[in-house]
């Protein structure tokens, strides 16, 4: 009885040893398999961020930056997300939009903050975008729509500026697959609940904007690119229904109002300029 057991174990070990021995060879290099490395993503993040940095104005006022930062810090802490990976930028643009770029760049337009009725709405959208980053949706989308070869050629400087610009625009103005959006929504609700933030305003935000969908929606980018806002609002409500918690506000009310006030001034100033 002992003999077959020993032989069986030896056979399994033999297989594992063969596998292990073979892994010592860098096959990816030998077969020249194209793959996205951290470096590729880092470089792409820089390239795309440059596009937005050069075309819009970044708001760097201490109060604005700190307020958004404390909101993101609270969300990250409650969900054990490494905040140092995220690079938050607030840009002065009246579009209601926020989006994620490769390598953890998260861009929020001032229009989104100014059009959020309360801080929970903004927190919801931020959580949704952080979910896209955490679930690695950005690189997935790029790989699918642009292709690995084009992405890699961008990072090696073999691609024209126009291509980079177009790709960056695509990231800011088109949604992910329906299933990825849903994943991000559900994850966002989890993030909100973990941070003790009421997810209902996030759903209301979608409802509210979906009602405006038939009007001229040139400013409602975030909603017009994310289809079926009503349906999304419904499943967010459905998902968070049984999960009531002791909800708290991340920012003091005064800080939130100050943020909007300050942004309003900044955007007015810039627009007058």
């Amino acid at each position, binding site marked *: 009885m002992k003999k077959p057991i020993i032989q069986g174990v030896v056979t399994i070990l033999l297989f594992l040893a063969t596998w292990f021995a073979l*892994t010592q060879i860098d096959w990816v290099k030998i077969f020249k398999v194209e793959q996205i490395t951290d470096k590729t993503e880092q470089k792409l993040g820089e390239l795309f961020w440059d596009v937005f940095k050069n075309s819009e104005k970044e708001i760097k006022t201490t109060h604005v930056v700190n307020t958004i930062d404390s909101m993101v810090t609270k969300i990250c802490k409650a969900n054990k997300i490494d905040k140092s990976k995220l690079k938050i930028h607030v840009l002065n643009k009246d579009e209601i939009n926020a989006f994620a770029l490769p390598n953890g760049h998260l861009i929020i337009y001032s229009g989104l903050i100014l059009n959020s009725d309360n801080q929970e709405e903004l927190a919801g959208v931020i959580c949704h975008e952080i979910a896209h980053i955490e679930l690695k949706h950005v690189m997935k989308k790029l790989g699918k729509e642009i292709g690995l070869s084009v992405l890699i050629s961008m990072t090696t400087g073999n691609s024209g500026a126009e291509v980079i610009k177009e790709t960056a625009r695509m990231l800011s103005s088109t949604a992910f697959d329906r299933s990825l959006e849903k994943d991000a929504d559900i994850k966002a609700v989890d993030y909100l609940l973990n941070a003790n933030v009421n997810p209902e305003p996030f759903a209301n935000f979608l409802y509210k904007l979906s009602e405006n969908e038939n009007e001229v929606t040139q400013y409602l980018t975030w909603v017009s690119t994310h289809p079926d806002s009503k349906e999304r609002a419904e499943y967010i409500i459905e998902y968070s229904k049984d999960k009531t918690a002791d909800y708290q506000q991340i920012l003091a009310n005064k800080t939130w109002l100050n943020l909007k006030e300050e942004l309003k001034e900044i955007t007015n100033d810039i627009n007058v300029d």
Partner: protein
Amino acid sequence: MDLEHNKRSMIQEKQFSYEPGEHEAEAASGSYLMSLIAIVAGIPLPIVNLIATLIFYLGNRKSTYFVRWHCTQALLSQLSMLFINSFGFWWTVSIIFTEEAVTSKYIAYIIAAIIFNVTEFIATIYTAIQTRKGIHIEWWFYGSLTNIICRPNL
């Protein structure tokens, strides 16, 4: 040289408890051929090999000891290949359909799997030929396992 050594240690010619008749040798050899025939279908879908040998095994359940013994050995060897190949198969599927990337670890696994498959393939051909001649062949591990499972009397 290697193969010779292999033959001696991993695959052993042994004296069976009795001299198998002509039709027994043919049926026993058939059980190995069964797994070879199914290999074309079995490469993308590893379960096919197993099903083919299983059908043959079930068909010969009430046959003579020599036939049953070899059907069992063929079945057992397919069973272990099923584990190796299924793992590789689903790994490949996840690379094609999900964001899983091709890594050196994956390529190494596939090469290891190919080596084991080829070894098994050669052993199967060799055994099919030998059993056809009525020579009893016991494989490393599978042979001793078969000796436990397969009893002379039904």
